[in-house]
């Protein structure tokens, strides 16, 4: 009799102990998930990665119009002769790109695979030319709008042999932070990657595009710029991991 009673007590005790252990682990796991979730949300909120810059030295401080005739440029360790900019010539050279074309939405496509830029007005292609996209930094893929147009500015960045400091960069059309379309007077290797993330063009092409492109005005966004990994025709723009999808 005594033996049976002892056995019952032991079973009851084991059952209670097991029940307590399950409750304990359930509570602990729940608490862990809760705390882990809190840490994740807090981390995502406070540890946002810095926005990349095409021009590491000038992207924070120099996104303003600057004409510095007579200044000397530096690119890949070499001094570069900087072309002078005379705004009087801009007034005497009227914009002609797209003026004889029917109206329609303006859209710029950049094809990173073929290193070409296409400008469309509606369904009409009005310009096609070679460009140089990012070699030292990658050009961001996605769909953007021109957020500001600058006739000229200074761009600088890099370090060591990669240091560059280029005044009078002409016809700048920023589309994502300090990534922009602009003229490049320091090289002529278009059709091949040569930039720090921007889209370089011959100054003559950049000027034509600059006069045609719309910046933001009256609450409307600027001209659309689509950076494609591959482009075949309007609205067929292959984008891998676009940053603003």
């Amino acid at each position, binding site marked *: 009799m005594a033996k049976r009673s002892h056995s019952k007590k032991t079973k009851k005790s084991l059952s209670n102990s097991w029940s307590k252990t399950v409750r304990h682990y359930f509570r602990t796991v729940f608490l862990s998930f809760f705390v882990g979730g*809190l*840490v994740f949300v807090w981390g995502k909120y406070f540890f946002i990665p810095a926005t*990349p810059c095409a021009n590491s030295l000038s992207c924070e401080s120099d996104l303003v119009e600057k004409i510095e005739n007579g200044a000397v440029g530096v690119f890949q360790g070499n001094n570069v002769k900087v072309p002078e900019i005379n705004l009087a010539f801009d007034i005497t050279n009227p914009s002609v790109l797209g003026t004889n074309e029917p109206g329609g939405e303006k859209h710029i496509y950049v094809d990173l695979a073929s290193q070409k830029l296409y400008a469309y007005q509606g369904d009409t292609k009005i310009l096609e030319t070679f460009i140089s996209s990012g070699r030292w930094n*990658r050009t961001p893929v996605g769909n953007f709008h021109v957020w500001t147009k600058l006739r000229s500015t200074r761009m600088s960045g890099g370090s060591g042999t990669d240091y560059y400091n280029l005044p009078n960069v002409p016809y700048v059309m920023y589309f994502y932070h300090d990534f922009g379309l602009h003229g490049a007077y320091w090289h002529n*290797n278009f059709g091949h990657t040569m930039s720090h993330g921007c889209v370089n063009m011959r100054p003559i092409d950049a000027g034509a595009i600059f006069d045609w492109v719309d910046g933001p005005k009256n609450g409307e966004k600027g001209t659309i710029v689509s950076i494609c990994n591959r482009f075949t025709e309007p609205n067929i723009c292959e984008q891998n991991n676009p940053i603003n999808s």
Partner: protein
Amino acid sequence: MTIRHQIEFETVFFLLVAIFLAGFFVWRSNQNLQNNLYAATPIISEGNTPKIIVPTLNPILKIETASQISPDGTKKLTMEKTHNRDKTVSYVFTTSDGDGNNPHEVYTTQLSGSEDLSLPFNTWSPDNKYVFIQKNEDNALVFKATGEPITNTATFFDIQDSFKEKDKKNVPSVTTGWASETLLIVNTIKEDGTKGPSYWFEVPGKAIMQLSSNF
């Protein structure tokens, strides 16, 4: 250690693991964002290649007259190609202002039908002082834009010959364009036919410098 202590220890351990995992996921998540910001060049598997026509950078012009404007639009290089009765082809290259004024004859030659000269897209140096002309598919000739001899002893530089003179084992395959006012970018192939390194060809010094990355 009492059961109570053991339970407290386990709870703290679980919490630490949870915090560590959450931190890891934050880090991974931010890394994915970074990768999206710096979008990678696509790797396209064979058989899945989109069918697109990629234009050539160095078109072989079949027309009689062709020209290439300088990057700033102020100068122009014109090529006149004449097919002779003896099946040779005569070429005349002339630089001028963008509007055609102030012409300078740069180069005149007559080649057999198997050889070819053409105007690359990036023919002009950024400062408009030099031009290069593509010869066949793998060579380039470099001239002063004024039509003057490029040195006291040479009218122009032949890229292939310059590589041979310097006893380079890699052979030029294509000259892509100008990295600066005086540096041409030359891609090469190795003796075994595989892709070789890229070089800078310096004008007018004729120095050849190997680059760490390929163009």
